[in-house]
């Protein structure tokens, strides 16, 4: 068994690696321009020139490690140079790739774009050149050859030469004129990027002294998650204990009184609870039980959120003790939903077990219904019960999202929601690791418990 547990733990490492890799690939496929988003949304900032804007963009992109290829090696068509990653902003880089794809003229396109950048930097602080500036910006935006040539011709026709920029403008126009579609084979080229790639940048930050930082506030992503984890753990663990105790007891009670009015009443209530969406139950509980809205007698629970612990530093246990009463209502909400499901499934399994031959045989031996239930039916139904419970561990972590949001509890679920809304991927990745690990540990605990409680499964589980 020890070897089995060790093997399962070792298997977690490649599994987490795969989860992270796929998450990274998905993020890489996103067309979101994080830097532009950060710059555009930073309030009413004014950029005195195009150069100031690109400087700001480059500084932020470098800080985020974005001016690098995605992986340790890249496969590109031969007409796309390795240095393409250095071109900013991302939208402009995509435009260049389009042009390269169309013309396959690497030297011509890149030279022209370099001169265009220089021209934009020269022109932008000068309001006298505004007409030319907007025409050059339009030229820079053109990402196919026909449009590029059309816009270049328009400039050529309307442009009045001035001494300061005429040479630069003419150079660009000549370069555009010389651009042609080159024919030939498109060969793939493999470039090895060494350690200068985004995946390495990201992974190395995960284990180095310079950790992955949240894009929102620059604090270490791991610290944010660990700080939030304590609240989620408190909620999830308490919920799990309540579900574990009450679901089995209710199922036992229902099977024992199968078909009686109390059994039917409990079944009806459990169905109703399971059918109601969690967010609705939670919102109703907040509105009814934490305010005087429907009379002071309904205001029986403390308010939502956690206590303001102003002043000294509190330990985790102190914080938990101070907030215990505030956590009760959210725990209750999380419990009732899962409780309904697990009780229902366990009851069904117990009824099914009661039809099995070994139970019939025991009944024939003269065991009374209570003895049958405790000695034969319940242990048999434990397989389902334990499997369901272990599966709940991960879902409680993610299921706490709604509860944490509604009850304003600063746990992992709320952090995940906030981070996803802000595209704060470093934090989302760390949460992903925790949820993956929680899922695997949940199932591992389930398997170990099954082996202990139900020796018949030990062989199936461990001799593989």
């Amino acid at each position, binding site marked *: 068994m020890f070897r089995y547990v060790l093997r399962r733990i070792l298997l977690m490492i490649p599994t987490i690696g795969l989860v992270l890799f796929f998450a990274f690939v998905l993020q890489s496929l996103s067309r979101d*321009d994080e830097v532009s988003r950060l710059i555009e949304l930073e309030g009413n900032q004014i*950029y005195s020139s195009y150069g100031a804007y690109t400087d700001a963009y480059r500084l932020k992109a470098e800080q985020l490690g974005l001016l690098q290829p995605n992986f340790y090696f890249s496969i590109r068509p031969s007409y796309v140079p390795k240095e393409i990653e250095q071109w900013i902003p991302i939208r402009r880089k995509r435009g260049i790739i389009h042009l390269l794809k169309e013309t396959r003229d690497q030297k011509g396109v890149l030279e022209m774009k370099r001169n265009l950048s220089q021209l934009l930097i020269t022109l932008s602080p000068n309001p006298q050149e505004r007409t030319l500036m907007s025409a050059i910006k339009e030229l820079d935006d053109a990402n196919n050859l026909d449009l590029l040539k059309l816009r270049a011709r328009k400039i050529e026709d309307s442009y009045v030469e001035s001494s300061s920029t005429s040479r630069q403008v003419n150079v660009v126009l000549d370069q555009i004129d010389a651009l042609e579609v080159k024919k030939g084979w498109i060969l793939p080229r493999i470039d090895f990027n060494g350690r200068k790639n985004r995946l390495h940048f990201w992974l190395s930050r995960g284990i180095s002294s310079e950790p992955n930082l949240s894009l929102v*506030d620059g604090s270490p992503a791991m610290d944010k998650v660990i700080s939030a984890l304590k609240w989620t753990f408190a909620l999830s663990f308490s919920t799990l204990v309540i579900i574990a105790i009450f679901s089995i007891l209710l199922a036992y009670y229902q099977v024992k009184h199968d078909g009686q009015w109390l059994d039917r009443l409990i079944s009806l209530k459990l169905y109703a609870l399971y059918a109601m969406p969690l967010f609705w139950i939670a919102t109703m509980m907040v509105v009814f039980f934490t305010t005087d809205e429907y009379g002071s007698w309904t205001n029986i629970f403390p308010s939502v959120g956690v206590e303001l612990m*102003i002043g000294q530093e509190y330990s985790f246990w102190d914080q938990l003790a101070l907030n215990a009463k505030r956590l009760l209502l959210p725990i209750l909400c999380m419990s009732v939903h899962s409780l309904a499901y697990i009780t229902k499934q366990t009851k069904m399994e117990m009824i099914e077990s009661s039809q099995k031959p070994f139970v019939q045989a025991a009944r024939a031996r003269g065991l009374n219904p209570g003895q049958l239930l405790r000695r034969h039916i319940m242990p048999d139904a434990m397989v389902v019960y334990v499997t369901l419970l272990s599966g709940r561990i991960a879902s409680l972590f993610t299921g706490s999202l709604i509860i944490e949001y509604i009850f304003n509890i600063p746990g992992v679920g709320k952090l995940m929601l906030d981070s996803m809304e802000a595209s704060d991927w470093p934090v989302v990745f760390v949460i992903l690791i925790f949820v993956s690990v929680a899922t695997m540990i949940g199932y591992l605990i389930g398997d170990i418990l099954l082996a202990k409680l139900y020796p018949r499964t030990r062989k199936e589980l461990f001799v593989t």
Partner: protein
Amino acid sequence: MIPRLLLGWGCMIFAICFAISCQSDRRSDSGMQEEIVIRIESEPRTLNPILTSRSQDREIHEYIFVSLGDYDPVSLEMIPVLIKNLPSVMTVESGEYSGRDAYSMEIKEEARWENGNPISGEDVLFTLKMAAHPDVFTPGWKSLLADIRDVTIDPTDERRFMIYSEGEYFLNLEVILTAEIYPRYFYDAQNAMSSISLTELKSISSQELEQKYPEVSALGKTFSSVKFGKEMVMGAGPYKLRQWQSGQYIVLEKKENYWGNTYPENTILQGGFQRIVFQIVKDETVALTLLKNDQIDFLNFKRSPFMVFDELQNDQQASADLDFYTQATLRNNMILLNNHSPKLKEKSVRQALAMLTDVNRMLSQIEGGYGLRINSFIHPKKHLYNSELEMIDYDLDKAKKLLDESGWIDTDGDQIRDKMIDGVVVPLVLDFYITSSSTSASILAILQQSFRAAQVGINAAVLPFSKIITEHLVPGDFDMSVYVRASPTSKVDPYAVWHSSSIGLGGKNYQRYSNLIADQYIEQIRRLDITEEERAMYYKKLQRIISDDHPVIFLYSPFLRTAIDDDIEPLLSLKRPGYFANGFKMRE
């Protein structure tokens, strides 16, 4: 037997827990004198003012940091804060900076940092150097400070200093005055910055800096770190950061023996409550619950529908301990029209769309009347507003006529107008980008109704605001978009939003408005060598020309709707964020 026992014990333990928790937890009145709890919707990113210009961050750090001068929340006039008097521009007649503009300033004698050190010109110079540091991400500041040449400190009195400017930008003085000042001794204990001049720092690259001045380079990284944004935060304001509990709350504490107490007439330097607690509550229902439970004292109903505000006011029980206020804001809601779009290139089409927009209905249905109609980029309550501009009223017939005259007619009977453009029949269906907010949805619903009546189609797409900006507004891939623009308390610099050079990357002229005369007015407004009367005239002319061109559809400016504990007297202002917690007082 055992399960029954377990069930019994389980129920009993649960009942005990239930009983313990079953108590309402209203705060006792005794604590009310000490602190005020204000709800904020989201956590600030940083309390390091140079690194951010987000209003959510400023809402908190403005009590910790103060600047040389600032706009008074009550009078909305520029007042001296750290300095004795507001400076006026003078031209240097001799020496190194001969011919340049200069501002001479003197810091108040009483102004001191927490350690007792006087605030000096050295701190001002350090602040400007940090803003110019190539490794510090302060893009907005770098552009604004581009014209500032140098700072010289009087060798006989370190409180006196002179700032030299080389540009002719009309807001230069305001930029200098409103920069939050940092204590050099706290942020640069080793005085590394003294090894490099401001001029050199402005022109040096990050790589060169690392080679030539490694300590200065390292300081840039430290300064930008989370440590100086969340933990070690110090300014000259009336409050200091006491605690930042991530995801929960931020506590500011009033400084003891604060030097600003000697200036009771200066609102910015006042501290009313001993502590200001900013509680982070994202969900509106939760915030309302906390307000009703007396867990928070001040709530801004910015995100809630007006009905919630009205219902709470009418609910006698819930509102028994609350006062309600509305306050005009400088937020302008508008619909951006892409002036480069082939469908919206013509002024008459844009004018027709403005006539199809029933702004009065929007104001009443979306804001419950809590707002003010606008027809200019300058708020009607500001003195530079051109009061001669007309409001465009909803007029379906006139709009139809304008569209007919522009050649947009339904030729194929599909109830959508169309027109031949460059040899192709183009239907008048407009790509309209909105966010998922209820305000956007309501604007869309109202527009759809009137546009349909005029046979104009809307192709609506709901996207996050950041995506609308980066993927549609910046590249110009849109016809219409809902947009909120907050204008500053100061004079507005129209260059970034209305000048044709601000179209595309780096600019905020998302509507792609281009008018040579408007450009000339903007350039005149930005000049330093004109009188304030002349500037006001250009502002009014610019407003007129923009109003006539209809580059955007101006909607309304919503009011700030707030509820506050009735024991507290609030200080509300047109200045952002609309309230000033340091001016809140307990009622007599």
